[in-house]
């Protein structure tokens, strides 16, 4: 099967150039990322000991990952005791099959979904549709994306690349009415259309922000309320969650809730924080009769065994995207994977393969803004460098010339006399090309270095020479 996410990978540079040339996307990205970052700063400033709390959250995640097998078993026991079911999926295909099996056994035909990146990761919707099931995304942004046949371009604002005009066009085409391009009326149309779907749906699919091992609870954090509707109206609830989302105890949950909304939007808490603990109880008048949890591995256990384990601490708030000078210019689609931005540049190669995503470890200036913004202080730059190192060992990624160039550089740097000599040579070579100390263009195999920026010519006198003259 052709992986749709993989199709675009080879053309990162082209996709970036296109994004840079798209004026409305540029305006939308500036608006989104600056608003969310301002919220993020405000949110964390209002939290008295935010740095300590972030360290605390990180320690909980480190501990949980170091005992993940134990906590997953505890989680499973808790859910079984509540009358729920747990399905274990090694990869995307097994997860899709699990959902199809549940739909078949429980006789479900109409499915509503609340926003979930994990279901994007496993390309769930096409598989469900191919089986003749109706699937409707109910997050307003995701609904627009689904109607347009696209992928989300931001972790928390999936339709950021759309304007109100384009949203009005998409909804008008869907309803056959001429809708005004104003936010309020458009959202009302969305509410009306989706209410009809909720009223008749028999299965609700959600992701999960956290899983509590001690109580068997799935935690959903939303602002619109579609997550609540998805778990309230249909008779079957299926939560598809990456296995790294488990936390040990209920009293660990506030640590993460206090960080998640602040990291994402700057809210102290999102509008709805919903804790679902098993299926509906006897005598209750709504909520799903059946509760299923699909636990997804899909490459995570492979990552767990390596020093890249830290990436499994991510709580998907999107703060690193908003802080990243690269994401802020090119947006989510240019990255080519389901997860975009700095964290996506790590997750996509790790869950897939480094060889399939050669551009991603380099889609960063390593400025460190992502790590500074991360509510669990994930050292993203360090891992990007680690991925670049992995690429060194992969055949065919680096050209033979490049490898030789680095070997030559090593040889030079190990011998001071050779270093001094080459410095003199470099100066003699560069000065004729430089104007005011900058080179606009360099020839030959290193021409790429000046394709997008000027290159500084070596100083007239090196530090060592200046130092010698001082004494």
């Amino acid at each position: 099967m052709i992986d749709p996410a993989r199709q675009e990978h080879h053309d990162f540079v082209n996709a970036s150039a296109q994004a840079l040339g798209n004026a409305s996307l540029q305006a939308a990205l500036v608006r989104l990322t600056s608003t969310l970052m301002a919220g993020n700063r405000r949110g964390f400033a209002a939290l008295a000991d935010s740095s300590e709390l972030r360290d605390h959250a990180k320690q909980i995640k480190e501990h949980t990952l170091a005992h993940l097998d134990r906590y997953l078993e505890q989680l499973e026991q808790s859910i079984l005791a509540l009358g729920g079911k747990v399905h274990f999926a090694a990869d995307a295909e097994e997860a899709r099959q699990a959902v199809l099996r549940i739909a078949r056994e429980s006789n479900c035909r109409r499915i509503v979904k609340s926003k979930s990146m994990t279901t994007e990761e496993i390309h769930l919707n096409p598989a469900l549709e191919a089986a003749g099931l109706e699937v409707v995304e109910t997050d307003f942004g995701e609904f627009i994306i689904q109607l347009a046949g696209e992928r989300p371009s931001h972790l928390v604002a999936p339709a950021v690349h759309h304007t109100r005009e384009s949203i009005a066009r998409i909804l008008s085409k869907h309803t056959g009415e001429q809708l005004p391009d104003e936010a309020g009326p458009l959202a009302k149309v969305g509410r009306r259309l989706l209410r009809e779907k909720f009223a008749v749906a028999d299965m609700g699919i959600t992701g999960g922000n956290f899983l509590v091992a001690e109580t068997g609870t799935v935690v959903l954090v939303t602002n619109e309320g579609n997550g609540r509707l998805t778990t309230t109206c249909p008779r079957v609830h299926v939560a598809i969650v990456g296995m790294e989302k488990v936390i040990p105890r209920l009293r660990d949950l506030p640590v993460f809730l206090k960080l998640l909304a602040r990291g994402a939007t700057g809210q102290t808490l999102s509008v709805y924080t919903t804790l679902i603990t098993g299926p509906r109880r006897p005598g209750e008048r709504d909520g799903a009769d059946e509760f299923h949890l699909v636990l997804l591995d899909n490459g995570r256990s492979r990552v767990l065994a390596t020093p890249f384990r830290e990436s499994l601490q991510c709580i998907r708030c999107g703060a690193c995207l908003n802080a990243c000078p690269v994401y802020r210019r090119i947006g989510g689609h240019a990255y080519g994977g389901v997860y975009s931005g700095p964290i996506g540049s790590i997750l996509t190669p790790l869950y897939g393969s480094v060889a399939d995503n050669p551009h991603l470890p380099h889609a960063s200036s390593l400025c460190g803004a992502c790590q500074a913004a991360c509510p669990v202080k994930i050292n993203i730059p360090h891992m990007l460098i680690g991925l670049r190192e992995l690429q060194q060992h992969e055949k065919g990624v680096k050209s033979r010339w490049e490898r030789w160039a680095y070997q030559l550089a090593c040889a030079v740097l190990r011998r001071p006399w050779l270093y001094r000599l080459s410095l003199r040579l470099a100066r003699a070579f560069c000065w004729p090309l430089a104007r005011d100390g900058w080179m606009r263009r360099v020839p030959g195999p290193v021409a790429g270095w000046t394709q997008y920026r000027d290159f500084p010519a070596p100083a007239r006198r090196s530090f060592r020479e200046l130092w010698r003259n001082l004494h």
Partner: protein
Amino acid sequence: MTNSREAFFQRVREAVRQGNRVGHIPGLPERGTVGYQGAGEDPLARLRQEWTAAGGQFHLASTPQEVRSIVRHLVVTKEARCVLVGDELDYLDLEKNLLDCEIIRVGSLPSGTEREVFFRADVGISAVTAILAETGSLVLATRPDQPRSLSLLPPIHLAIARRDQLVADLFDLLDGSTPMPACLTLITGPSKTGDIELKLVTGVHGPGEVHLIVLSGEDD
């Protein structure tokens, strides 16, 4: 099924073992007081401030009579025709003041017929399990006659709380001391979306209007 479970755990166990060899194995950190914000000198003021900042509407009442008149005022100005009322609110005798609209108690609905009413109601009136000062949130646990739909499907949600239900911090609420209900929801303001050019729109899925009435007791 059993096989895929076994294979799943086998992989995780092996990965944990390999990964743990690389680094240290940290213990679960002691909770201590890190991250505890509390609600300051005046928790009720903090609640009011956070709740209204999130877009919720706040009312203070000192007697059941006052609660009734606030409810009546809202129902009349919103021209609500069908009002759905959850349990634990009998003491307020809401029907007394609302003669001109349809008042339906959830408890009076025959089981299996609720759905149509849930989708039709204009206002849902519920009690709360707690009110959270730190974040300005309502906390609702499901019970047989306090369904999830009550605070979700009608376009207007009205929650009635007593002052003694005030909890300072999220850590006080989720301390693991009480068994979990099938659904516990924290509500912080009206339903919101910013998906259209980041312009804030309320009521996209859940209620676009939420009112909190805190009954403070006559001696306050």
